[in-house]
């Protein structure tokens, strides 16, 4: 085990390599900031430290990051700002009177630092354990766990679950937090959606939101291309989000069709399995082991899909319009075969 040094102050670091504090300011201006990471770090420190926001001219005057006010220096500054923003660092800008239209920049501490989460050691360990049990395909959670500190990175539990990760997920989530409507293409149409909630069910991520026509469900992996957030604070979602109310977990109940109660006879081979998976609904048990189920149906497509999954083990007894729908579907397949 390697020992850990005691915390000390910089004044104690007599043997530490010389910092540029030892170099005269005149000499500093001659120094070439050779590594871009060094320049980015100092720009970030400068914007974070200042009690007043700074213009580009202020930055050039105060620090030796960009040399002069030339066009190429300005381009380097713009590129550096863009890099910091791409890392999630929020740079606040303002155009104040008296600056001849110059933009002022600052990084507010509350925008930079992780707030104190006040996690107990047990809670921090639980987050590590949870993240080690679930594989999200990407390293989002690992980077976050490093920031939360504490526990070691060694997996504490075998992976027991995998979750699909999609580029759109964090963008949609951030937009919902900011109450920004999101624009994306779905089923060949452009949609502008006010998000209400996101949920993960049967291996897929869904967004529930209002697209101006109605509250709809969008399967996120079917969003075509990227997601563009709009103006923050543009809407308030209605009440508490309920995923089951947004989309019933039984596909046969999804949709605006008139409700029907279908009677379905399941043979003895599959009766037990259907009863277990549906959690009930038995209205008749026959001597041969077959069972009649009563099933609420609002979506005939989903009902047919479920029924045909059972093939010869199931037959619909009623009502008449559901039987007719199934017979018509099967007949159309038989008829199509005659034209092959």
């Amino acid at each position, binding site marked *: 085990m390697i*020992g850990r040094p005691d915390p000390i102050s910089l*004044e104690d670091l007599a043997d530490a390599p010389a910092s540029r504090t030892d170099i005269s300011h005149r000499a500093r201006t001659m120094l070439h900031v050779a590594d871009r990471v060094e320049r980015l770090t100092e720009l970030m420190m400068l914007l974070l430290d200042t009690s007043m926001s700074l213009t580009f001219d202020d930055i050039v005057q105060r620090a030796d990051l960009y040399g002069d006010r030339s066009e190429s220096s300005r381009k380097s500054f713009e590129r550096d700002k863009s890099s910091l923003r791409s890392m999630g660092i929020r740079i606040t800008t303002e155009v104040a009177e008296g600056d001849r239209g110059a933009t002022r920049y600052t990084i507010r501490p509350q925008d930079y*630092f992780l707030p104190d989460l*006040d996690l107990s050691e047990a809670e921090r360990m639980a987050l590590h354990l949870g993240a080690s049990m679930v594989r999200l395909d990407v390293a989002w959670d690992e980077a976050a766990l490093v920031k939360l500190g504490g526990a070691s990175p060694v997996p504490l539990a075998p992976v027991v679950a995998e979750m699909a990760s999609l580029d759109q997920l964090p963008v949609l989530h951030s937009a919902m937090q900011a109450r920004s409507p999101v624009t994306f293409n779905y089923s060949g149409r452009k949609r502008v959606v006010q998000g209400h909630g996101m949920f993960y069910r049967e291996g897929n991520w869904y967004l529930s939101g209002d697209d101006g026509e109605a509250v709809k469900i969008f399967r996120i992996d079917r969003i075509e291309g990227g997601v563009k957030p709009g103006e923050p604070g543009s809407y308030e979602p209605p009440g508490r989000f309920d995923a089951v109310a947004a989309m019933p977990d039984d596909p046969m109940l999804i949709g605006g069709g008139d409700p029907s109660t279908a009677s379905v006879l399941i043979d003895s*081979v599959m009766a037990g399995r259907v009863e277990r998976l549906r959690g009930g609904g038995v209205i008749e048990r026959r001597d041969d082991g077959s069972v009649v189920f009563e099933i609420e149906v609002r979506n005939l497509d989903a009902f047919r899909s479920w029924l045909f999954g059972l093939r010869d083990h199931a037959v619909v007894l009623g009502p008449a319009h559901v039987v007719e729908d199934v017979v018509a579907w099967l007949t159309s397949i038989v008829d199509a075969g005659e034209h092959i």
Partner: protein
Amino acid sequence: MARPTAEQRLTRLLAIIPWVVERGGATLYEIAERFDIEVSEVLKELSLVQCCEIPPYGPEKTLGIAVVDGDVLVDPAAMLDRPLRLGPHEGFGLLATGRLALAVPGADPSGALVGALEKLEAALGERAPVVVEIDRPAALDSLQAAVDGSERVLIEYYAAYRDEVAERTVDPTALVHRDGNWYLQAWCHQVEADRTFRVDRVERVERTGVRHERPAGDGPDRYVPDEDGESVVLSLPGEARWITETYPTGDVAEVGDGLEVTMIVASSVFLERLLLRAGSEARVIAPPHLTGLGPAVAGRLLERYG
């Protein structure tokens, strides 16, 4: 491996510095191990930023970090003593994995993870609900106990591709939730090989009291179509595109308003279900002996409706 970009290097440094500050210092080796990078790389990066300072240039205007004889020393009053706030990807990643972990067997619904997620949501200013739902098939808890206890079990399993229920004696080695289903990885004594079973198709679990010595599994591999299966070419209407999103497929070609899809099928039972669901515009193009399968199964089922 590609050289990291300046942004990637700075992101890494902004994670390393608060981590070292929190510990009150660390060795180069500890940092290298924690962040999975070479010691020489750690030394190079920290040597670079220990020189970073801003006007009016004094110790309090530095990152307060120094590398001395392999030890990384920190000033408790360092400028970046706390980590950068969680980015959208990180916050979402922690919430999603935490919520999923809460839904797996054995999770304590009133335990530390719940408290941690509540605090995380509060800190993130959480106003965007993320709900994670996982089914818990009836056999899940019994199989989890069998995995934990390395106990051989007898299972009654519905093999959907053969449409039959059979008994298997298995040595369970792992349970994994993937793509919306729970899967059991186990050594099957009937076929004398590792097999994967979908837990919602396990009809019954019977304990044997016999312990097995097989090592814990890594979790079943993703489903790969059996090479011994038959290659089938399907013509599908556009509305049946869901088939390509649900099942492993080979070539997929857009033909007019529809698709031409090649897939390996392990049994005609699977193909019958697919054709019934896809409707009258779906048909098998090849092989020739399966071109009439859809109409045949539809005709067979129609007989039930007299």
